C-alpha cells in the first residue's frame, strides 16, 4: 500500500516538475492521435455523407460492413499494417515501420470506420429533413454533401470525439507498428504498459492521470461547444 502511495507522490512530482520525458511522451501521443483523427475525419465525414445520401446496389451491405469495422481488433490492424510496412511487405520500401507515421496509419485505419459510421447516421437523419429543400434548390451531389457536413458540424464533433477516444486509448496497434522505441515512438499508452510491466509505477501513474484529465477536458470542451450551439439552434 505504501508503494502505491509513493508511486502516486512520484507521479504528481513528475507532473508538477514537467518532467522532460513525460512531456515528450505526451507531445508525441497528442501529435499522433490528433493527426490520425484529423485524417480520419477528412476521410470519414465525406464517406459517411456519401453513404447517407447515396442509393446504390449493396448499400445496406456496405453500411453493415462499415458498422462492423467499428469493432476492429487493434492488434489485428497492427499486424496487418506491420505486414504491409515490414521490409518484405509491399510498402516496405517506404521504410515507415517503427516511425510515428506508421502509428498514424494504424490509428487512421482504426478510427476512420468509427467516424464514418457515426457520421452516416447523423447525416442520414439530417438528410431526411433537408432532402426536398436541397433538391428544390437544384443542389448538386457535392453541394448537398458539403451542406449536410457543415450543418451537422456539432453532431459530427461527437463522432470525432468517439474516434479521439479510441485513438487516445489505443495501445495494441501502435505498439506493433511503432515498436515503443524511447524518444521515437513511445506514447502514453505504450509507456504505461511498459512501465507497469517493469513495476515502475510512478511514470505509468503520472501518464494515466494525464490521460484521464485530457479525456475529461476534451469532453468538457466539446460539451460546452455543443451546448452553446444548441442554444442558438445550430445543433
Amino acid at each position, binding site marked *: 500500500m505504501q508503494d502505491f502511495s509513493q508511486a502516486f507522490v512520484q507521479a504528481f512530482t513528475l507532473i508538477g516538475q514537467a518532467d522532460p520525458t513525460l512531456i515528450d511522451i505526451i507531445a508525441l501521443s497528442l501529435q499522433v492521435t490528433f493527426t490520425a483523427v484529423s485524417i480520419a475525419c477528412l476521410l470519414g465525414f465525406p464517406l459517411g455523407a456519401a453513404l447517407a445520401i447515396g442509393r446504390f446496389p449493396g448499400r445496406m451491405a456496405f453500411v453493415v460492413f462499415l458498422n462492423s469495422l467499428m469493432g476492429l481488433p487493434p492488434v489485428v490492424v497492427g499486424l496487418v499494417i506491420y505486414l504491409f510496412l515490414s521490409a518484405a511487405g509491399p510498402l516496405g520500401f517506404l521504410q515507415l515501420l517503427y516511425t510515428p507515421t506508421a502509428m498514424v496509419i494504424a490509428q487512421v485505419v482504426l478510427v476512420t470506420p468509427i467516424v464514418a459510421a457515426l457520421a452516416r447516421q447523423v447525416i442520414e437523419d439530417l438528410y431526411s429533413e433537408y432532402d426536398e429543400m436541397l433538391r428544390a434548390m*437544384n443542389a448538386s451531389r457535392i453541394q448537398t454533401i458539403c451542406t449536410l457536413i457543415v450543418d451537422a458540424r456539432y453532431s459530427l464533433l461527437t463522432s470525432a470525439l468517439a474516434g479521439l477516444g479510441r485513438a487516445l486509448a489505443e495501445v495494441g496497434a501502435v505498439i506493433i507498428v511503432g515498436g515503443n522505441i524511447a524518444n521515437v515512438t513511445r506514447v502514453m499508452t505504450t509507456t504505461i504498459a511498459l512501465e507497469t510491466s517493469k513495476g515502475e509505477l510512478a511514470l505509468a501513474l503520472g501518464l494515466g492521470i494525464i490521460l484521464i484529465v485530457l479525456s475529461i477536458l476534451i469532453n468538457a470542451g466539446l460539451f460546452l461547444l455543443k451546448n452553446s450551439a444548441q442554444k*442558438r439552434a*445550430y445543433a
Partner: protein
Amino acid sequence: MLKMNSDLALLAPAKPFSAHLPIQFEGVHLSFGKHLIFSSLNLEIGAQGITAIMGPNGAGKSLILRLLAGLLMPEQGSVRFNTLSRVPRDQIGFVFQRPVLLRRSVQDNLLHALAIAGVERGQRPFRADALLELGGMQHLAKSPARKLSGGEQQRLTLLRALAAKPGLLILDEPSASLDPQATALIENIVLRASQCGVKVIVVTHDQGQAARLSDEVMFVHKGRVHAIQATHEFLKTPASREAKAYLAGELLI
C-alpha cells in the same frame, strides 16, 4: 408599394420564363404503392401572372407542385414546359408549407442559396443584403434562422427561393398558420416578384388570399382538374359543382 427599379434588379428572372409557358401535364399517372393519386391527369397553365391552385385536402395540390418542380417524376405521361420536355430546375424557386432552414444565421441561409445558384462570390453579400431589405429582415441578418418566428421563417424561405432569380416561383400554402400581418408581408413580396415577370403558382385554401394574389384559379379535386377560371369569376360563379361546394364550405366526398 412597388419600388420598380430596385425590384427589377433584384427579382426579374435571370432567364426569361415566358418561353417555357404554357406548362402542360399530359396523361400524368402517379401512385404510391396501391394508392392511386393521379390517373391520366391533364392540365395546362398558360398565363403569366399568378395562378392559384385550390381544392380540398388530399386533392393532390401539393403533388402537382412537386411534379412541376421536378421533385417527383410521373410514372407515366409527361410534364412539359412549352417545347421543353424536362423541368428547368435552375429556373424554379420553391417555398414549402413547413419552412426548412439551415442551422445557420439568416444571412448565411441566403448566402448558401446564392452559392448553390452559382452567383459569383463577390456579389453574394450584396444580393443577400438586398433580399434582406426586401423582406424587412436586415436587423435579423445575424440571428440564428431557426430561432425566428414562424412568419419570419417563412419570409426567409421566400427570400431564399427568390435568391436565384427564378422565372417560376412555386408556393405550397406559404401562409398556412400565419397571422394576417405575416401573411400580408409574404403576399407583398409575391406580388412584387410577379410584377417583375416571375410566374407564380401558389396552393392556398384561403379564398381571400386567392382574391388578393391570383389572376386565375385552378380547382383540383380527387386528382382531377375541375375548373380553371379567372379568379373573380371562380369566386363568383365557379364552373363546377365541386368547386361551388368547396367555396361554400361543404364537405366534399
